[in-house]
């Protein structure tokens, strides 16, 4: 029953179990991995040390609010959660428009901790969620890389991924966002996929599908996996590496994963309709054909077979191309969504979707960002890719495909550097471990490390040789030593060389650690809710205006008060001030956002009816003029004008807001600019230098402000809150009423 040597057993084989040596080695490995995880976690705690245990800017605040809702109301209610405190008066069917994975996970963690008798607040769980999962990411990356090469490379990869700033940027403590969990799941899914492909196991493929489902539940970026795995299979098919293992793994993954992913309300029927998912479906079909062809090949003569293949290939390609076009045309297959377009054609977004272009995360990546986020890994990475191509087993094909595509996408969009980081870590680790193989071969230790590969390899080959009997299309590797093994066999003898090479690469790795430490501390640990600034004498002080203002709102306004602000602050107002907002960071309704932009851009008389129509009680704006804060609303004003101008072109015209073609504020600005509500509210009562825009503001810049009255201005003038006046009792217009009241 040698055939019963299931793939499972081969997978668990690695160490010489029972021997003393092996045990010690396992302990050491465990210690190393735990310290890597610990380092990864602790590096992400800068933000807590520097500031405090607080949820970071924007999206995390919504996730936090959703998590709280989930823990208070239970899953069933959460699923049907209609948020009547955002997007007033439209509301948001939140339960159906979010990825619940993050919230559910943190709730489970919270429940678990409570069960264990640790009375922690849900907020602490949320704040520390991302660092904790980065530890797990390190572990899964270790597993994945071990499949690619060996234990050493796995550990190195864990180290790299744990410390790369590109990943830290999205997973510091307090950054409670979908990405925090999804990179872990990405690595897990890929690990199980590789495992499944390697040994053709239904079990692993099913686990892969489950983990894919988890990923779908957690992040919209699951599409990356949806395309990466089919692509891997496709490339393998092109290389003529069809195999029953591949068939098993893919079909299991695809059918289970697709069915599972459709259980997420937000995803719904997209996996069978959306163009982004079509490649997975196509490869599924292709695989059936190839499988059938290989079956056929074993039954008929080569000549007949050739003919069948050629005719059917042509027919199938033509049919499927026609079918796809027809379905898209008929509207059955959804056209590609705008955000996806912007990946391919970045000008598309610029022209058609100002709201996407306004998001800085959708900007292309300059090389500095890459170097900042990856440090020396930038050039370890190609080395790893080179080595992977030399080895080129099925799993290495995956590595290469992933590397090329992830680097393309991350070049197009800054935020996708996140998905590139893991593969960079894996490739770099392979490079470094190959270097160590060549330069650091000191007897016995080497042997133990290496035993792994040959055994796995051997068993792999035995399975293969057995399988070969049925296999039709197997032109697998000839019987030769794999490239990675050959590296370890022919080592550098010179001691000087060894010392020099190892130490110089140690230097670069130290440099990498130092850089990521620096970058994390200086760039990625700010919660953005609290800002730090330094006075001329070098003292650091914290600017806490946001929370001050949100607290004011919470304590001084009616519970049902509607707050109008630019969408950036929607989640924060909802989370911190607990008040109803008109728009927020979930930018699903362009028109509504445009409406807010319109209210800000037009003059008082035109804004007032709109404010009444939307029942606005307060307007919150960010003004950085007093403390030189660049990210204020006046600097975002152009986007408000652009977005609203796209919807109400006869009312808001971008050109009207320029002065001689320049964006200018203050007394010299154009009429439209000077009379716009935002301009007035920003500079109301303000005198002196508007520092971000370097314009002198005097009392005449804003002579009057009649439809709203100042309700609150924070300590550094950063947040200004205005109360919208009620219509005048006596039927006067508000200019007249205000003039009379001020007399």
């Amino acid at each position, binding site marked *: 029953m040698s*055939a*019963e040597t299931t793939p499972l057993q081969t997978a668990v084989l690695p160490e010489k179990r029972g021997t003393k040596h092996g045990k010690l080695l396992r302990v050491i490995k465990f210690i190393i991995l735990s310290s890597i995880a610990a380092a990864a976690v602790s590096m992400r705690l800068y933000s807590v040390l520097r500031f405090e245990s607080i949820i970071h800017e924007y999206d995390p605040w919504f996730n936090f609010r959703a998590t709280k809702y989930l823990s208070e109301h239970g899953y*069933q209610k959460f*699923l*049907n959660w*209609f948020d*009547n405190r955002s997007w*007033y*008066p*439209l*509301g948001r*069917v939140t339960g*159906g428009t979010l990825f619940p994975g993050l919230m559910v996970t943190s709730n489970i963690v919270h429940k678990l901790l409570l069960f264990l008798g640790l009375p922690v607040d849900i907020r602490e769980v949320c704040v520390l969620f991302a660092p904790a999962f980065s530890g797990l990411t390190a572990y899964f990356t270790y597993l994945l890389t071990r499949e690619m090469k060996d234990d050493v490379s796995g550990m190195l990869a864990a180290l790299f991924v744990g410390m790369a700033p590109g990943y830290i940027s999205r997973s510091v403590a307090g950054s409670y966002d979908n990405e925090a969990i999804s990179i872990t799941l990405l690595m897990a899914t890929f690990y199980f996929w590789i495992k499944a492909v390697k040994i*053709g*196991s*239904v*079990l692993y*493929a099913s686990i892969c599908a489950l983990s894919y489902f988890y990923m779908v539940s957690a992040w919209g970026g699951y599409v990356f996996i949806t395309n990466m795995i089919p692509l891997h299979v496709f490339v393998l098919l092109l290389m003529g590496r069809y195999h*029953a*293992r591949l*068939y*098993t793994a893919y*079909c*299991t993954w695809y*059918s289970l994963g697709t069915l599972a992913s459709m259980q997420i*309300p937000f995803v719904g029927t997209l996996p069978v309709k959306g163009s982004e998912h079509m490649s997975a479906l196509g490869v599924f079909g292709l695989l059936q054909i190839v*499988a059938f062809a290989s079956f056929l090949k*074993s039954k008929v003569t080569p000549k007949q077979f050739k003919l069948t293949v050629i005719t059917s290939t042509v027919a199938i390609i033509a049919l499927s191309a026609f079918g796809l076009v027809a379905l898209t045309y008929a509207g059955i297959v959804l056209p590609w969504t705008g955000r996806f377009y912007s990946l391919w054609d970045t000008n598309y977004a610029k022209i058609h979707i100002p709201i996407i272009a306004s998001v800085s995360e959708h900007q292309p990546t300059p090389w500095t960002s890459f170097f900042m986020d990856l440090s020396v890994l930038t050039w370890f990475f190609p080395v790893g890719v080179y080595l992977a191509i030399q080895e080129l087993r099925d799993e290495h094909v995956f590595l290469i495909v992933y590397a090329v595509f992830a680097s393309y996408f991350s070049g197009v969009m800054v935020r996708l550097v996140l998905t590139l980081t893991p593969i960079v870590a894996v490739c770099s680790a392979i490079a470094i471990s190959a270097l160590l193989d060549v330069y650091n071969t000191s007897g016995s230790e080497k042997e133990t490390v290496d035993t792994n590969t040959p055994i796995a390899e051997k068993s792999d080959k035995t*399975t293969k040789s*057995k*399988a070969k*009997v*049925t296999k039709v299309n197997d032109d697998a590797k000839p019987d030769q030593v794999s490239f990675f093994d050959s590296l370890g066999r022919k080592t550098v003898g010179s001691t000087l060389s060894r010392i020099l090479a190892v130490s110089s690469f140690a230097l670069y790795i130290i440099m990498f650690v130092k850089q990521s430490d620096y970058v994390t501390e200086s760039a990625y640990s700010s919660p953005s809710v609290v800002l730090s600034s330094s006075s001329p004498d070098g003292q650091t002080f914290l600017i806490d205006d946001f929370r001050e203002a949100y607290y004011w709102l919470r304590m001084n306004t009616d519970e*049902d008060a509607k707050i109008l602000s630019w969408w950036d602050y929607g989640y924060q107002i909802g989370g911190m001030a607990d008040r109803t907002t008109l728009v927020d960071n979930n930018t699903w309704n362009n028109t509504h956002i445009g409406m807010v932009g319109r209210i800000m851009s037009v003059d008082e008389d035109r804004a007032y009816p709109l404010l009444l*129509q*939307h*029942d606005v009680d307060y307007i919150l704006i960010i003004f950085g003029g007093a403390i030189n804060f660049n990210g204020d609303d006046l600097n975002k004003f152009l986007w408000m004008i652009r977005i609203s101008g796209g919807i109400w072109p006869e009312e808001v015209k971008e050109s009207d807001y320029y002065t001689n073609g320049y964006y200018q504020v203050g007394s010299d600005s154009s009429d439209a600019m000077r009379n716009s509500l935002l301009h007035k509210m920003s500079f109301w009562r303000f005198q002196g230098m508007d520092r971000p825009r370097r314009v002198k503001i005097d009392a005449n810049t804003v002579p009057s402000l009649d439809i709203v009255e100042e309700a609150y201005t924070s300590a550094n003038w950063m947040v200004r809150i205005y109360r919208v006046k009620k*219509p*005048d*009792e*006596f*039927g*006067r217009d508000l200019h*007249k009423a205000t003039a*009379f009241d001020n*007399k």
Partner: protein
Amino acid sequence: MVSRLLTILLALCASVLAIPPPESQRVLIVHDEANSDLDVQSLGADLVSRGYNVDVAQFTQHPQLLHFGERVYDNVLILSGKLKAFGKTLRAADFLQHMKLGGNLLMLSTPKHNPSTVREVADQLGFTVAPKGVEYANDFNNDLVAHQAYIIPEASGDLNGASVAKLGDNELLLPLISGAPTSYSFNRMKQAANTTVSDVFALGEDNTLAVGLQTLSNSRFAWIGSPELLKGEIGNKLTSWVFKEMNNLRLVKATHVNELGESDVFYQVNEPVVYCAQVEEWDPKDGKWYAYLYRDEIQLELRMLDPYYRLNLKRTGCIAFNMPDQYGMFTFHLDYKTPGFSFLKDDQIVTVLQRSNDAWDRSWTITNSWVYLGGVTTSVMGFMAFVVLYLAAPSVGTDGTESTDGKVEKASSQTKKAESSSASTGTKSEPKKKKS
């Protein structure tokens, strides 16, 4: 003694006629001794007889309208005298504040007594009182035009020499009485031989002799250009309107309930809802609040940014309808504005939920889905049957006697898992397997 008796008698008689609502009983009359056009005492006595508590003060006494920010009187009557301004307790701002706090105000000014404070108040309310000396004149008849059927349905009389006002564009202004088409107004003192049309202040119906205004919070205001308008039937109507005896409505409460009679809930889309508004009108005869008779005139608007429904209430004051097929925050918007009557306004914001995930029909209740359910069931059963058969069948791989094609057999055990998975994706490998 006699006069007092008379007063009491009169009061008794009058109380049968009209009773002011309890929140509108404190009256202040401010006058000037020099103003001899009007018998303030008898006016006061008349008001007392109608059930009001009347204080009479002179401008020189500087009566307070506001005391620590609180309103002192419900109704204030200003009978202008020769003073040009009323002093520091009676500035225009005080009058407006008095009205903002819910007080009512009636002002009189004449061509002779034309103080700036009155003009200032008029200016804020959107109408212009003619300058000093400008008089109303109608040389042809005594006709007047009454505009508000619900306040002063008809008017006539000789008002030559009264002051007039021109109305601006304030939507809340109600012209009560204006001059006949043949009338005009001009400054008699300045009249010269060559008077032209341009010297005329206003012509015809532009000469408004009595102006009314009701603020958004239902304070009432009136200005009159002649003391004559305070006398007789017109005067009676005028004061009873300004002092809210007449046309005084209130919205006691507005409620909305769902099918189960629950209020204050989240509604579902398309859910039936009943909205009721309890509207009452003050009956000055009985001195009680009675249900408003014309409730079917009241309109309810259900809106989210734009109106989804506009529905008139039934005579019962209620209306039943279904929520629209749209989720969001809807407002039950009631805004009743009949000129001359109190404004009724009520906004209640409710949440209309989307249909929840378990509120849909289950698949087996939809007949169309049976074919799919059947397909699923047979697939599952078939797969199970296949597994059982496969496991139960004698193992062919070991001896190979049953096998005609050894290759396939070897592969079958090797890639057992692979093929069972492919079987799960469809049943196509089933027959193939059974053959071997």
